[in-house]
Structure formats: structure tokens, C-alpha cells
């Protein structure tokens, strides 16, 4: 710690601090424009110049390191004059746009000039009047207002790891632009917009939408991924006008991704359901709430009485609140008396959970937000973390900046791969093999923690199974050289602190339970703590939903049993989930759902699944009701009712309460506080009940469900893109403006061989069926592999896919022909 004096105030600060940081930390404001606490000092704006005793020049506070005993003056006549001049210069060409500029009222330049600037300008100059750049989605740029502070450029390059924009031209003609004045093509995360101090960068959805003083800001938890970021919604007269990150608020501390910033408009989609619907004469017709509730209660009771409670099944929601899911499983377990309740997490997070239990004996292993920053060696296996957990992913980039090794093993070039210290290009779904191969080397070269490993069960079984993962065999499976595998293992073992990060999305078909077990094996081999394996729960409430037991507890049927076997339930209640679009092998799902005698779907819009239902119940969505999410870090965070719920919709938990009552059950719940009290009790009783305290190795196998052959020569990998989340985000016009349609990515060489042209349609077929998709020819994918995302219902990509059985890898062999 060092002591210095600023404006006669003695301050203590750390040795590596700068004058500006020290001052701001002590509530002394030094004006600045190009400073952003997340970025390296840039020294461009020159507004932060201060006088330091013993120095004859003015020094920039943002980049001058503190020294013990330094004496700083920030308001001397020389400093004040310098600031005035700099502001004066900035204002010569800055257009007098305040009356029409969206930034008015929150503009840092306005504030600075008001406080430190001269009231007249001694210099005359022509105002800039170049045309605005409106040629890209989401982001607009007004070069005339730009003060060239460089924050947008640096946030994009240093913080986001992208670098889509930079300075172009020089001197007085300098502007911000992508290379060669091309239209902006980036993630559209909007970080640049939020950090712009003036009205130069703006968001098109927000353009001219409001003046700042008409809006009220409210924090809320984002409804998309498991990060659980806090976004600040600006609301004007009952409408969300924009969402921003706010420094110091939330686990994300002001950072947001495209979904968090721009996806909020999904709730005002025209497709929102406005009234309950009942199928009469083959058509879904609007009915009253009482009729709908009564019908559901009556039919469920009938079917329960006729076929037994075991013939009824339910699918809960990774996006609905804890209260909604809690009530849902109570309805099923206490009133309907069935244990057949599950969720889409069965295809994703459930595998990780199983691994946690089998390997570590843990009920739950939430991620730690700062885990990447504490690891010297980070291994990311076939996981596009910056697309599925974008803001958490920034910590990986930050860790690398601070000197950690970031090793990315993936079959596709992701942003983390581009920012890695070592990119291992492996064949799709061979991450499991790589982990096995690494364990093999670590064991046979004696690099493992013998003492710790000896306390773990099943050591011999593990070693036996590792015979399939010799460097030679692993090399064949992964496509890496033996030396690369050995090197990866050695550097993993010799690191001071380790981290393995794998995502567990239900749309990802490159992993199986064994992938997670293989990672856990490595953790246990090195004697590391279970937290060394970080697997984030996918959506905003996946972890919460799992904890509140939306899963069979006592031999109930899971999703696979209910939809992919002969055991289809007679009645099903699906809340907040869209199996007919997002589950694998939707032809089978469709057949199963059509067999269901009574299907209730509760959702916010008429999903493809809802179109098959007998009763459709319209639910309120995020920001329209009170609730709690449990993020992937295990944090319980509230969402509040910030807007009136659309006419005709009701919160999920309320609907369920009424159905329970109509069925004669007594859940002893009147309002939300009752729900919450009971939830607390339930958490206390349920969680922590089944703990197996022992650690165990688990033998692993590399098994593909299906192999390519001459007829189906390519492997299809399904994945999530950054700008979308399940099938929910496609309702957002903003996000659709960035990724508007389904597509399939195919390698240049493959495309040429097959006669596929970029941007043209192709027919994609697997043994399960065919679909038509637009082809994107790119070098981001390797020969022999194609990638498609599953977000759009009309893409029907899941016609092609296989349901992932627990232990086999559901990679899909496909063939591609020009359409």
C-alpha cells in the first residue's frame, strides 16, 4: 500500500494504481473521457492532466503510476486552463446536435463542458457534417459527434477479444470504422455503444425512442443464459426502450452480451398468446380462463383415474422462475401423484449433474464467476463459452491477458479459439478422447498425484479403460499428433492451478456423460478440488429448476422415456418448453406427442408444440411477473414485475395454483409469499439429502451413436449461436436483425466438391430425415464437418438429430446436396 496526497487529501492505494484510479477510489473526480476501468490507459483525451509537485510538465492522471509521497493538484489554474482549452478544441467541430441527439442528458461531453468548459468558443470552425453510418444491424455511428476517445475500439479488442473496429484515416480526418469502411460485421454485443461517452455510437432500436428524462431505469436479471447478469432496463410508459449494463451492478459489473442488451423485445412480439385456447372440432379456439382451468383439471383427473397416475407426465421449464417450477412439481407430485417430471436439461445439464454425483459425490456444483482468473492453465473442451455464457467467457479472455494459458480444444474456430494461447483442432466429439488421452499420459508418465488418487475408488477400472486412449489411439480419434497430446497432458499436469471448462447445452451433440466423467477423472487424478471442473447450467434458471427437482426422483419417467420409447404418457403437461423444435429427433417427438390423449401446453406464444395441444394456457413472461432465478453460479436473484402483463396472460405459478385447486388438491398457497416460504422449506429438506461422500474414478468409453459412410459422409454438429437462445430469442426483432435465419456452415473444400455455393440452399439429410437450409461456406469449419444451429422452428434442423443417450455421442452423419 502507498500513500499519496491529492488536493491536500491523503489517500491510500495499491502500488500498481494510477493517479486517476486512486482519485476516483477516494471520491475525487478528475475529468476524463477516454478512461474505462476495464481497459488499459490510453492517454488520448488529455482531460485528466494534473500537476504533480516536482514535475514541470502536466501529467496525465490515467497513465501516471502512483508513487509514495506523491503530491498531486487537480484544480490549479494551469490545469483548469488546459482542460478548458481541450474542451474548447473538441467543441469547434462537434455539431450542436443536443436537441436531436439521443445522448442528451447522459452525455459525458455535455457534463464536462458544463463543469469545466468555457461558455464561448474563441475559435471558429466548420461543424462536421458527414453522413451517418447506418449500414449495419443494431449499431449506428455518427462520425460528427465522435470525440475519438477510442473506448469503443479498445473495448472491442481488449475486452471482448474481437477487434471489429479501429481508427481509420489520420489527423483531423480520423474516424472510427471497420477495416476499409466495410459495414460492421461483429458480435453486435453493443459494448461499444454502452461505453461511448457521447452520441456517436448508438443502438438502432433505441434511435429517437425517447429523451433520457422520460425513462425510468430498473435493474432486472437477464432471462437468457446462465450468467445471471443484471441488466438495467429503461422503461418509458410501460414499454422497455433499451437495456444497458451498469458499472458496479450485478455479477456482470456492467458487461452484457447481444441477448442481454437487445433481446428484451421478445416480450412484445405480436405472437404473444392473449387468451387460453381449447381444441374443439380439431381447431384451437379461444376460451375463458375458468373454462380452460376446469378442462385441464377434469381431463387430468379422468386420465389419472382411468390409467393411473403413472400415465401422466410433465416437462418443466429452464426459463420459468423457481416459483413457477416449484408449483409445477408440487402439482405433479402432490395432486396428480406422479414422479414423471423432467426438463430439456435431460439432454444437457443432467449429464454434468450425473458426473458430479458419480465422480465427486456432489448434489450440485455451481460455477464460480472468477474461476478462470484463478487458474494458470485453462482447458476448454468443445465449448463455445463466449456464445453460450458470453459474459462469463470474458473472464477467460481476461485470464489470458493476465498470463494464464488458455488451451482450447474444438472442431470449430470459436472466439475463445482465436484468443487462445494454444488451439487444438480436434475432430468433432473427440474432446472425450482427448481428455482420456491426457489422463493416459499423465498416469503412465507418473505426473499424477499418487497420494490423492489412491484415496479415490475405482482406480484400477479407470486405468483399464484408459488402454483405449493411448497416444496412438487418441491421435487417431482426435486428429492431433501424439506429440500434441503428450504436450497438452504435460503442461496440464505441470501447471500450478488448473481449470477445465465444458458447457452442457441441450442443443450440443458433441458430448456425452463420459465427456464429463473423463474431465472429472483428470481432476481426481491430479488431486484437484471438484471446482476445477466448471460446467455452467445453460439458461437463466436451469440450475434452479434442477435444484427444485424438475426431474424424476423415485424412478419416474424422464424426457427420453416419455418421448422416445413406447412409454408415452397418456396425458402431458408441458410448461415453458418447445420439444417439437428444440429436442433432438423431432420426428419421433412428433409421433409421441400425437399419441398423447391430452396435451396441455403453457407458454407465452403459440409454439410448434402448442399447436398440437388440446389446451393452451397463455403465461406471463419475464419482467411481467415477480420471481426468482438461480443462475449458474448458484446465486438466487429476483426478477421484478416492471411492466403490466399483457391482457389475458397470468403468471405460471398462479395458473398451476388454480388448476391444483380445481383438481381438489390443497397446496396451501394463496399468494407468492406463501410459495416462497414453502420453497425455502423445500430447499432445506431436499437439497443435501442424497450425498455420497466418496470420490470415484469412472471408466470411460468413446462410442459414437452412428458413423459416417459413403452415403452420409459428413458429421453434423449442432450448436448455439451467440445471438440466440433456445427457441425463445427468435421472437426478438432486434436479435433477428443480426441472425435472421437458420443456416448450415460448410468448409470451402467440401463445398467445392459437392457443388455447394455460398448463400444458396442445400438439402441436408440424415438417416432420420431431410431439411433445406442456407449454406454458409467458410473456413471456420474443417473438412468433413458441418455446423447448424437449431434456433428457428422453420429450420427444423432437429429432424436430423439423434436423441443423446447417456453414454453415446450423438454426432449425426449427414449428406449435403445443392437444393
Amino acid at each position: 500500500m502507498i500513500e499519496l496526497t491529492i488536493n491536500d487529501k491523503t489517500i491510500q492505494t495499491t502500488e500498481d494504481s494510477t493517479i486517476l484510479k486512486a482519485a476516483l477510489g477516494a471520491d475525487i473526480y478528475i475529468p476524463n473521457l477516454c478512461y474505462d476501468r476495464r481497459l488499459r490507459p490510453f492517454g488520448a483525451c488529455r482531460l485528466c492532466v494534473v500537476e504533480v509537485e516536482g514535475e514541470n510538465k502536466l501529467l496525465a492522471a490515467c497513465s501516471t503510476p502512483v508513487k509514495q509521497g506523491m503530491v498531486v493538484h487537480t484544480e490549479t489554474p494551469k490545469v483548469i486552463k488546459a482542460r478548458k482549452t481541450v474542451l474548447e478544441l473538441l467543441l469547434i467541430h462537434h455539431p450542436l446536435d443536443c436537441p436531436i441527439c439521443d445522448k442528451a442528458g447522459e452525455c459525458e461531453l455535455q457534463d464536462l463542458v458544463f463543469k469545466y468548459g468555457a461558455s464561448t468558443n474563441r475559435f471558429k470552425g466548420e461543424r462536421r457534417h458527414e453522413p451517418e453510418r447506418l449500414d449495419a444491424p443494431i449499431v449506428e455511428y455518427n462520425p460528427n459527434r465522435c470525440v475519438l476517445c477510442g473506448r469503443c475500439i479498445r473495448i472491442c479488442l481488449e475486452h471482448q477479444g474481437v477487434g471489429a473496429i479501429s481508427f481509420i484515416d489520420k489527423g483531423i480526418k480520423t474516424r472510427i470504422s471497420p477495416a476499409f469502411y466495410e459495414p460492421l460485421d461483429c458480435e453486435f454485443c453493443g459494448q461499444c455503444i454502452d461505453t461511448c461517452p457521447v452520441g456517436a455510437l448508438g443502438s438502432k432500436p433505441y434511435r429517437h425512442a425517447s429523451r433520457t428524462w422520460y425513462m425510468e431505469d430498473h435493474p432486472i436479471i437477464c432471462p437468457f443464459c446462465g450468467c445471471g447478469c443484471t441488466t438495467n432496463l429503461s422503461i418509458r410508459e410501460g414499454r422497455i426502450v433499451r437495456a444497458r449494463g451498469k458499472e458496479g451492478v450485478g455479477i456482470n459489473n456492467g458487461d452484457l452480451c447481444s441477448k442481454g442488451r437487445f433481446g428484451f423485445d421478445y416480450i412484445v412480439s405480436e405472437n404473444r398468446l392473449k387468451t387460453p385456447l381449447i381444441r374443439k372440432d380439431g381447431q384451437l379456439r379461444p376460451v375463458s380462463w375458468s373454462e380452460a382451468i376446469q378442462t385441464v383439471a377434469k381431463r387430468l383427473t379422468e386420465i389419472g383415474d382411468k390409467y393411473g397416475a403413472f400415465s401422466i407426465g410433465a416437462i418443466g421449464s429452464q426459463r420459468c422462475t423457481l416459483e413457477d417450477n416449484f408449483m409445477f412439481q408440487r402439482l405433479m407430485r402432490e395432486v396428480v401423484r406422479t414422479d414423471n417430471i423432467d426438463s430439456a436439461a435431460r439432454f444437457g445439464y443432467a449429464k454434468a449433474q450425473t458426473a458430479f454425483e458419480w465422480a465427486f459425490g456432489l448434489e450440485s456444483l455451481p460455477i464460480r464467476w472468477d474461476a478462470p482468473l484463478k487458474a494458470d492453465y485453462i482447458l476448454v473442451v468443445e465449448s463455445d463459452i463466449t456464445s453460450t455464457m458470453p459474459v462469463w467467457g470474458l473472464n477467460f479472455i481476461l485470464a489470458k491477458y493476465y498470463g494464464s494459458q488458455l488451451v482450447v480444444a474444438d472442431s470449430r474456430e470459436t472466439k475463445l479459439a482465436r484468443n487462445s494461447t494454444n488451439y487444438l483442432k480436434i475432430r468433432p466429439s473427440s474432446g472425450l478422447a482427448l481428455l482420456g488421452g491426457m489422463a493416459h499420459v499423465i498416469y503412465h508418465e507418473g505426473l499424477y498425484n499418487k497420494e490423492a488418487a489412491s484415496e479415490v475408488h475405482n482406480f484400477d477400472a479407470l486405468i483399464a479403460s484408459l488402454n483405449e486412449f493411448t497416444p496412438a489411439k487418441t491421435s487417431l480419434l482426435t486428429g492431433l499428433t501424439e506429440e500434441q497430446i503428450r504436450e497438452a497432458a504435460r503442461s496440464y499436469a505441470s501447471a500450478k492451478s488448473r481449470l477445465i471448462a465444458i458447457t452442457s447445452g441441450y442443443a450440443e451433440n458433441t458430448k456425452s456423460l463420459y465427456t464429463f466423467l473423463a474431465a472429472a477423472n483428470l481432476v481426481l487424478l491430479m488431486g484437484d478440488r471438484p471446482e476445477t471442473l466448471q460446467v455452467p447450467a445453460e439458461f437463466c434458471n436451469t440450475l434452479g429448476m434442477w435444484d427444485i427437482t424438475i426431474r424424476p426422483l423415485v424412478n419416474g419417467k424422464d424426457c427420453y422415456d416419455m418421448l422416445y420409447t413406447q412409454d408415452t404418457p397418456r396425458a402431458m403437461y408441458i410448461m415453458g418448453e418447445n420439444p417439437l423444435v428444440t429436442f433432438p429427433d423431432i420426428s419421433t417427438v412428433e409421433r409421441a406427442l400425437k399419441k398423447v390423449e391430452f396435451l396441455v401446453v403453457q407458454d407465452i406464444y403459440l409454439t410448434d408444440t402448442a399447436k398440437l395441444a388440446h389446451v393452451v394456457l397463455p403465461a406471463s413472461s419475464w419482467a411481467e411477473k415477480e420471481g426468482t432465478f438461480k443462475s449458474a453460479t448458484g446465486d438466487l436473484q429476483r426478477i421484478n414485475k416492471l411492466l403490466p402483463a399483457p391482457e389475458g396472460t397470468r403468471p405460471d405459478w398462479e395458473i398451476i395454483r388454480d388448476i391444483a385447486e380445481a383438481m381438489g388438491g390443497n397446496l396451501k398457497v394463496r399468494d407468492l409469499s406463501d410459495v416462497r416460504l414453502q420453497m425455502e422449506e423445500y430447499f432445506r429438506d431436499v437439497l443435501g439429502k442424497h450425498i455420497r461422500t466418496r470420490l470415484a474414478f469412472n471408466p470411460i468409453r468413446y462410442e459414437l451413436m452412428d458413423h459416417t459412410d459413403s452415403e452420409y459422409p459428413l458429421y453434423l454438429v449442432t450448436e448455439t449461436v451467440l445471438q440466440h437462445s433456445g427457441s425463445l430469442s427468435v421472437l426478438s426483432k432486434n436479435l433477428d436483425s443480426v441472425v435472421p435465419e437458420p443456416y448450415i456452415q460448410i468448409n470451402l473444400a467440401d463445398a467445392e466438391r459437392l457443388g455447394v455455393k455460398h448463400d444458396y440452399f442445400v438439402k441436408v439429410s440424415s438417416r432420420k430425415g431431410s431439411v433445406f437450409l442456407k449454406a454458409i461456406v467458410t473456413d471456420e469449419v474443417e473438412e468433413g464437418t458441418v455446423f447448424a444451429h437449431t434456433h428457428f422452428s422453420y429450420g427444423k434442423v432437429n429432424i436430423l438429430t439423434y436423441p443423446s443417450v447417456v453414454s453415446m455421442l450423438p454426432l449425426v452423419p449427414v449428406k449435403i446436396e445443392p437444393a
Partner: protein
Amino acid sequence: MENYRANIMLCGGTGCTAGGSLKIREAMQQGIRDKGLEGEINIQLTTCSGFCPQGPIMIVYPDNVLYQKVSLKDVPLIIEEHLIKGRPVERLLYKEPAKKQGIPGIKDIPFFNRQVLRALRNKGLIDPDSIDEYIARDGYQAAAKALLEMTPEEIIKVVKDSGLRGRGGAGMLTGLKWERAASVKAPEKFIICNRSIIEVEPHLIIEGMIIGARAIGASQGYIYVRTGAPIIIERLNRALQQAREYGLIGENILDSGFDFELELFASSDEFVCGEETALLMSIQSMRGMPMPRPPFPVEKGLWDMPTVINTVETFANIPQIILNGAEWFRSVGTEKSPGTKIFNLSGALNNTGLIEVPMGITLRSIINDIGGGLIKGRTFKAVQVGGSTGGYIPEQYLDMPVTYEDVTQMDAIIGSGGIAVLSDLNCMVSSARFTIEFAVDESCGKCPPCRIGTSVILDLLNKVVNGTATEEDIYLMEDLALDIKNTSLCGLGQTAMNPVLSTIRFFKDEYLEHINEKWCKAGVCKELCTFYIDKEKCIGCGACARVCPKKAISGEKKKPHHIDQSLCIQCRSCYETCKFNALKIGPRSMREELTDNEAAAYIKGAIKEVVQQ
């Protein structure tokens, strides 16, 4: 080894090459072959002789005769007269101003014999493309000594003791810089040579860098060439190739166990990339814009590793310091600025070119003794010290010793080593304006003071030059220039204000003349001058009329001539031609007056005619 009876050294510096020295060499070789003298006479190209405006330069050894402004048609004459008959060609000899006699011997020419050659000791003596000739002149001896007989600490000590200051402009003690870099612990270190013009032979730079790399522990070096001149890049690449072949770059140099890789980095011609952090950005494939310091490059430079950046001249001094010691280095120069400095002498002097003189020499001595004084007919006005962004120093300060510390007192800098003499034919305001225009063009655009401020100052200077300024504008300019100097991020913005500040400080009367009297007495600012002929002095020789591009001057032979103001474009050719002091420069207002007067006289004359009729 051939024993020639004569060695002809043709200057191969950039200037003389542009002047045709390569062709002259070919012609000489052909001519000598024709006469069957190839066994007796050797022709070769050498490093820059420094006498650039007088080029192409040829020196004949062992006679030590210097020929200037040699052209192709002189070749047969030289061969016939000098090489065969032994009679130096009088016409091509250097002549002192106002003297008819040519000075044949290079040792007798003051321009040369007043210089103290250390960095330029091989000037005009060796072929810049020959590593063997460089080695023959003690080349790479210092590198060998440093690698094989000295420790890095000893190298740093002798450089520190010598007091050598970085010759790039800021004048930081080189030994201190190296010491700092050596003390930082890092996996990799770099050493970089920064320059746009290479005045010395490439091997000298390479040798200096090897020694520096050894001292700080750098394994990789770059020679950063910020210009598009292919000749320089070719020369450097050839030299690097030769050094590599001789095992002087690469692994285990001279069996010392020291590895050092040295490469050329050629970038586009951006003035701002001379600033060291911008240079580092440029090498890292980023846009060449300066970054704030601290952190300083010696701590966190290229790829965040300790990096020493020095210029050509600094490295050029190192080998001699290693061989001859710190005391020898300090034997010339001053206490705080020891050693010699290369300057680029230019302007209205009789002798101009590249010179190397002891630090502490006065400006007056440089101008008179070496420069040979002002060209006939011109009077001294100011000397710009420091290159394009140096300050202007008036007559009363000419006895100022040229050292780092004295020069900064005068709002000037040592900078790139430019010393440009301005005469009565230069307008101070226009010169300042020219510098600011340069700064506006070269500004990188990062910080508002330089990006916007220089443009504002340019606008104001344009107003002065166009005659629309007020006195208020001078104070505005001075005030703004001070703020720009105080707040700019890098040396470009800071030093660009020197011309403005020093001209306002020392030549305010010129500004006031421009503004209040609308009069540019030097005749440079076209809007503010009128060229007219003093009828008392004009003898009607017609010389001015012959050079006038617009045929604006008319008059009968032996009668006073007259300039038609409506045709005159103020090019000043007539003024510079007149030997009788008859051409005068008046204020702008005279134009209208003269036109009116002439119109009046014409009408008077016409009326007279009519009346006479």
C-alpha cells in the same frame, strides 16, 4: 591485393546517387578501360561525404583532391587531365565564396577540416556495401571486444561514463537507458534502431546494436526504417546478409555464446512513427499511434518486454567508445553534452551538407566557419535548430553553445540535427506556417490538442499570411500553442509548437508588419507584398524582365523598367536577379496605389496627348 596508383572515391550517398554518381562510376570505369588503366586506377562508391548540395562529389586519392558537381560530361576531362596528365581540373574544384581560387585539397576546405569525425569517420573512404572495407577500418573490433572481453555490466559502465546522450533528440543518457533495460527481469528483450535517414555505413549500426544487445541481454533487434527509399533498404539488407554470413549476427556470435538476431523493419513514411511508442505499435502490426508513458519502453516496450530504442547516430558512437574508452569520448564536447553531433546544415549558406562537430560549438562558428557564412547579398535572419519542428534563434543568441541543455532554453531542440539558416529572403511567419502545415499532415489524430489544435493554429497563420488577421490572433495563437505544448500526448504536438512560439517570441514585429501594415518584407507572402522598381536605381539592364515568367516587366533598354501589377504573381524571381538593388518589396497597399498612380499617369498622359492635339 592490387596496388593502385590512384583511388577514385565517388560519393554513394543518397543525394549524390540521385545526382548520377552511379552513372558517373560506369562512365569512369569505361573510360579507364578504354585507356588501358584498369590495373592502375580503382573507382569505387563510398559512404556519404556530407557535402550533399555540391554533389555528385568525387575525391581522388592519394592527391586528396575534391571535385564537386561532377557530371557525365566531365568524365573524359578528369581522366585525361588529372589521371593521365596529373593536372587537377580547376573548374570542378571547390571555391570559397568571394574567392576565385579553387581549393583542391579536401584537407584545406574549412567545411571539412573544421569537423571532428567520429560517427562519420569512414565518410567518403569506404564502399558502404563492403563488409571487408569496414572491417579494415577497425570495423567489428569493438563488437569482438565487447562480446569476448567484457561483461554486460562493463559495457554499460563505459557507456555511462562516456556521458553519451541519445542522439535522437531527447538526449537521454544512453548508459542509463541501457542500465534500466538490463535491470528488468523478462523472458525476452529487444533493441531497436530508429531512423528515417541512414547517414552512416550500415555495418556501423549493426556493430553498435550488437554491443547494445549484449549489454542489455536482448536476443532480437530491429532496424526500423521509416521511409520508402529502396536504396536504404537494399543497402541495409545487403549489410545484414554479409554480417550474417560472417557469423556476426545469429547464434553464438564469434563463439561467445551470445545469440542475437537482427532484422530490418520497413514501415510506411509516417513522421509520428519516429515517436518511440508509436514505433513499437507499428512493429506490433498496430496503428502507429503513441501510447502514454509510463510505462516506458525500457520497462514495457515491444510486446510488453523491455526494449531499448536508440537512433543511428547513438549506435554509431558506441564502437569507438568501446575501443577508445569513456575519457576519449569526453575529450571533445562539453561536460554535460560530451562527444560530437551530426548536423544537417542547410539554408542560405555557402557550404551546406552533413557535418559532424563537437558539442558545445557555437552556432556562429557553425554558420561562419563551416558554413562559410551567408551567401553573397543575403543577411542573416534566424537559424532553425532541431529540424522541421525546431525553434528559430535570432542573431543575438548565435554565440549560444549547441548542447542539449542550452538549446532547450531557447524553445528549440537538437531533434533530428537540422540547422537551417534563414535569411532576409525568408519570412518567419510563412516558415512557421509551413511547419504547422507539416504537423497537421503528420498528426496521428489521437489527442485533441494536436489533432484539432494544429489545424486551428494553421487557420490562424493562414489568416496572417492572407492579411485577414488581427493583433488579437497573435495572442490567441501564443496562448493556444502553449496549451497544445502542455497537453499533447507526444513529441509531435509538443514540438510542433516550437516554431510558432519562437517566432512570436523573437519576431513579433514581423507578425505585426503582416497584420497591421499588410507587408511581408521578405516577399514570401504573396498577398502581402508588392514588387516594384526603384526608378532611381534601375539602369534598365533588362535582366529582371528576362526572368519574369509572366512578362510583367517592361521598359526600354537603359531606361528604368516598370512592373505591371495586374500581371505580377509575386514569384520574386526579379528581386533575386537584380544586381543593382533596384527591385523593392513594398506593402500590399502599394499595389493598388501603383495601379492607381499608373492609371492616373496614363490618363494624365492620354489627356496630355489629347490636349496637345
